[in-house]
């Protein structure tokens, strides 16, 4: 199973990286006489409404999103883990301050932060920079949930027998934190990563409503997934569903490849 998952993931990465050489069409080339084409020999997944090859767009979109979304997730989780761990560990005023900030981050409409950021950014941003900025923002703003969960998990672990025993045995607090506590948080961090990657991929597409996110003509996996809502009226279900299948494969492969607990790999 694991080998299969690894194989799939490697094949995916190769296809995304070499996509341009595999397919005859570029992702932004508009075949204006062949709009909304069904899958065929020339266009394996058909074309979109502007006549662009869906297969080429899928590979280009996968390259953008599958590279950047995990990076943004790691950033968000790292931020969340640092704050959540320290809050749970030190407690007291620091915990209260962090908790307040978390509540604030969760309750305040982040939408407004994003449109303000868009207003400050220049308009002439290349599509690639635009999508990179967006994932960076997602990483920087998306840590609050992680922080809350990790803080909760940290408090549980603090009360567990092994930490109490370690402390009683005279281990330094830092050592307990790094050697005993952190590895035990692995399952939570792992779940967060698996959940955050597709979450960020979809969020990125929604940000195009605010002038953030990927810009035309570059596709992202998220922007392609958004077209899924045309599924009920489009005959090209294969072309529309392919991005979801690809993302599900990638997420599923991660499920199998990431060890369920530390040291098990």
């Amino acid at each position, binding site marked *: 199973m694991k080998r299969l998952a690894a194989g799939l993931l490697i094949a995916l990465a190769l296809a995304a990286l070499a996509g341009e050489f595999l397919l005859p069409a570029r992702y932004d080339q508009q075949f204006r006489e062949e709009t909304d084409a069904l899958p065929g020999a020339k266009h394996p997944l058909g074309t979109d409404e502007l006549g662009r090859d869906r297969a080429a767009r899928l590979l280009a979109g996968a390259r953008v999103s599958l590279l950047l979304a995990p990076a943004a997730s790691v950033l968000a989780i790292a931020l969340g883990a640092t704050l959540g761990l320290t809050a749970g560990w030190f407690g007291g005023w620091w915990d209260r301050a962090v*908790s307040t900030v978390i509540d604030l981050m969760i309750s305040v409409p982040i939408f407004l932060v994003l449109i303000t950021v868009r207003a400050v950014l220049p308009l002439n941003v290349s599509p690639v920079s635009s999508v990179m900025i967006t994932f960076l923002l997602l990483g920087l703003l998306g840590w609050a949930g992680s922080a809350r*969960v990790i803080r909760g998990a940290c408090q549980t672990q603090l009360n567990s027998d092994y930490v109490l025993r370690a402390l009683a045995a005279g281990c330094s607090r830092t050592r307990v934190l790094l050697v005993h506590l952190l590895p035990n948080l692995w*399952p939570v961090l792992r779940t967060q990563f698996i959940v955050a990657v597709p979450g960020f991929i979809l969020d990125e597409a929604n940000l195009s409503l605010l002038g953030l996110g990927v810009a035309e003509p570059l596709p992202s996996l998220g922007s392609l*997934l958004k077209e899924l809502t045309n599924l009920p009226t489009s005959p090209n279900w294969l072309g529309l569903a392919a991005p979801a299948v690809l993302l*599900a494969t990638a*997420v599923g492969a991660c499920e199998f490849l990431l060890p369920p607990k530390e040291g098990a790999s």
Partner: protein
Amino acid sequence: MRNVLLRRIITSFITLALTGFAAATLLRVAPGFDVDARELDSRASAETQQQIRAERAGESDILAFYGRYLRGALQGDLGQSRTYEVPVAGLIGERLPVTLRLIGLGLTGAWTFALALALASVVWPAVGTGLNLLTAGMLAIPAGLVALLILLSQGPVALGLALALFPRLFSYARGLFQQNADAGFALAARTRGLASARFLGRYVIWPAGPSLLAILGLSVNGAFGGAILLETICDLPGVGQLALQAALARDLPLLVGMTLFVGALTVSTNALAELSAQFILRTRSGH
């Protein structure tokens, strides 16, 4: 204990006030705060344009606005919505039941399935593999599509919300249960032949309590986010729809009102979750 509770309440109120202020400030600095679509009316003269612009002047000093707003809020007056030109309190009150019902049903459904299936996959690993693949698929589907399918099939909107929330909750619950089940003392318990239901309850579910509660607090916010989307797509007149409208129309009083509502929801569910978590921790350190 009383002190802890009191401190908790005070912190909650401070957090809430800060949240409202943050939302008001953000809206003030966001682009398009003082524009009005009527300005594009090609018939409007310069005088009329100026008059339209002057209507927003009262809200541009955000400190003064928020001071006035809080004073009003303490007397139960949340101001007048700019888009709908009716009192915000009435507007939220009228629509709240719809959203609360949606969120309530959606959360109940999602949690029930998530916990039950997470347990099942701990007990039967083969089931777990299948469910992992299923959730991977569900995570890759935009919530917009779920909403659309619900709309097309005229299915219950709460089911849509439950489906949208389920995969994350399941992933977390499964991760936590698995960790507990694999822990040394749990294995020891199993080898000692503890009956399986008791084993699950005592060593798998109970210890996961505090973490699950933290996630529960978050999932309430997630459910509200989902409600915004579902209410908008399925045209359900709840507060979720209202929140989106408020942000898009830069309706300051309405948006601050909505943010305070979400803030209250967050702070109270988190407070509840945390108190329950402490209870669990205490009982455990007791045995």
